[in-house]
């Protein structure tokens, strides 16, 4: 926290170096708080999935939960891409679960136990890597399956000849913007939500610091709002993970079925 009891809403996003590891070129690779939360998310996800590996014909509760997630993603892939989408379900499922777990972990009230939660997906560096990964897969699949014919993606069906100079340019720009929109959407949504919560929290602290009357007058409505916003943020955590996975599946559909 910043000095003099002031709450800096951006401080929560700072990545702390925990220990150095090795150098790549002249860049240092360190184990950071961000890395720690990613490792925790991966391990939690792994533990969660192990519960679904009992492979019973009549599933228990845990297995139903895991199968609910897998069924959700494979159903989405089936609806958006078709039977050929099955091949890409592992990637989209990993993406969805990893992002969802990171989003939700960042919202956990772990501060009560003295742990500082950190929302990994509020970092553009992270969401950018995931978005570029998705975009690269779309490019590779598209050119692999269709060769140079993949460029016909930029000429939608029914484009009039006299607009041929304009439409492909617009389509190309919209195509190239995809990784940015993918990365920015998640990063901005997570950042904004956490800033909002921090701001309302600071209202309570600053109000109480000013005087008890102001503290109660400002604090109670702020707390009420924060409870609502916390619920909303949980929703956003799920929705943003879903949107990332959904858009990836739609982009993959372009590459696989090519209108």
């Amino acid at each position: 926290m910043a000095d003099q009891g002031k709450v800096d809403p951006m401080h929560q996003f700072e990545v702390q170096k925990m220990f150095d590891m090795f150098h790549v070129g002249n860049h240092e690779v360190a184990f950071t708080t961000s890395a720690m939360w990613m490792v925790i998310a991966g391990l939690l996800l792994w533990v969660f999935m192990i519960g679904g590996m009992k492979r019973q014909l009549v599933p228990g509760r845990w297995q139903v939960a895991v199968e609910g997630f897998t069924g959700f993603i494979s159903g989405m892939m089936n609806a958006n891409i078709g039977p050929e989408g099955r091949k890409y379900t592992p990637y989209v499922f990993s993406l969805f679960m990893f992002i969802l777990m990171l989003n939700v972990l960042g919202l956990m009230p772990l501060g009560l136990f003295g742990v500082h939660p950190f929302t990994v997906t509020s970092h553009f560096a992270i969401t950018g890597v995931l978005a570029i990964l998705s975009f690269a897969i779309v490019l590779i699949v598209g050119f692999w399956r269709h060769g140079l014919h993949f460029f016909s993606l930029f000429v939608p069906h029914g484009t009039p000849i006299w607009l041929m100079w304009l439409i492909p340019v617009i389509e190309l720009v919209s195509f190239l913007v995809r990784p940015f929109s993918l990365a920015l959407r998640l990063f901005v949504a997570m950042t904004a939500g956490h800033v909002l919560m921090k701001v309302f929290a600071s209202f309570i602290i600053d109000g109480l610091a000013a005087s008890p009357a102001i503290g109660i007058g400002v604090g109670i409505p702020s707390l009420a709002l924060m409870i609502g916003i916390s619920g909303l943020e949980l929703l956003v955590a799920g929705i943003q993970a879903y949107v990332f996975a959904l858009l990836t599946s739609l982009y993959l559909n372009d590459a696989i079925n090519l209108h």
Partner: protein
Amino acid sequence: MPQISQFAENWYAASQIFWVLLTFGFVFFVIGRGMLPKIEATVDARDRKVADDLAAAKAAHAAADALEESYRQQSDASRAAAQKAVTDAKDKAAKDAEKRLAKVDAELADKLSAAEADVSAARGSAMAEIESVAAEAAGDLVARLSGVKVAAADAKAAVKAVLHG
């Protein structure tokens, strides 16, 4: 905004990219490619089992219906056969009774006619005896009254004429 300002730090981007690739790689290879297909296979197997079981149940239902139908037909047929057997037996019994009755009738008629013949024979012989006795009596009477000896043949003819009118 640390998300942008920290790019200035030497370790930030390298660490973030390294760790996201490492952890996401773990998630993708271990969870996405290792565990997900098995879970999906389980779900598929269950779906298939449910579909198979439903089909089997439907087939069993149809078989039961067919069985019931054939049972019904069979019972109808056996009932008809039983009814036929009963009517046949009744007919046969009636015919038998009729035949026996006719036979008894015929026997009785035979006996009756034999008895009648006997009776008429007896009457004939009785008549003949009466005739001869009457003729003798008539001859005796004539001889005793008039002393005229009547020939037996005459007396017989006269008696016959009287008796038979």
